[in-house]
């Protein structure tokens, strides 16, 4: 019960912070993510005040909504709730692991999103913005399952 309460408190606090956070406030997560996207796609992004990171040639912006904060809190909650043991030791470890996972998964998602945007991909009712969101959900849910599986792998096998 203590674990669930603590996890929910952190999740609500981060969501509350995220609701009013600007691009500058979220630079701690946007900057490493964009750096990784640039590394993968070879497309440079320029930081623009009040927007986030932008590439004029492709017409793609990485704005606060793209920061992956929802995934960050979902990953943190998954890591916290999938484990047993010392709560106060697991809290910072889960937070760091969730941050690292968010940067990697979000960069992969954005790299694919840049490609979809560049080629103006759309399908049936899936307009480019809807496809962008759907792609994100598929990436995030798959990554959360992989995270939970990785945590389970650490458990000793019952003989």
């Amino acid at each position, binding site marked *: 019960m203590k674990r669930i309460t603590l996890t929910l408190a952190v*999740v*609500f606090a981060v*969501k509350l912070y995220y*609701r009013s956070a600007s691009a500058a406030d979220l630079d701690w997560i946007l900057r490493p993510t964009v750096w990784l996207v640039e590394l993968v796609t070879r497309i440079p992004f320029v930081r623009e005040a009040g927007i986030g990171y932008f590439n004029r040639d492709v017409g793609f912006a990485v704005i606060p909504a793209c920061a992956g904060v*929802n*995934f960050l*809190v*979902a*990953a943190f*909650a*998954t890591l916290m*709730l*999938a484990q047993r043991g010392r709560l106060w030791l697991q809290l910072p470890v889960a937070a760091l692991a969730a941050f690292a996972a968010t940067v990697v998964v979000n960069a992969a998602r954005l790299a694919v999103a840049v490609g979809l945007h560049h080629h103006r991909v759309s399908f049936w009712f899936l307009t480019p913005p*809807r496809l962008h*969101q*759907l*792609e*994100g*959900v*598929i990436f*995030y*849910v*798959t990554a*959360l*399952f992989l*995270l*939970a599986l990785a945590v389970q792998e650490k458990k000793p096998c019952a003989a």
Partner: protein
Amino acid sequence: MLPLACYLGVTLAMPLLDGNAGPAFAEHAILVVLGSALAVIPWPWLMRARARGR
């Protein structure tokens, strides 16, 4: 199902609870449910294959 519960909790339940669900929430919810369903499809098969491999 814990990862899915966490994701749906953060993306669907929390905006409803904190009153942050705007007019586009219905479309958002449909895309979240559709994307989650697509992402979950291979997992039962993968888990069965993994269990057989042990």
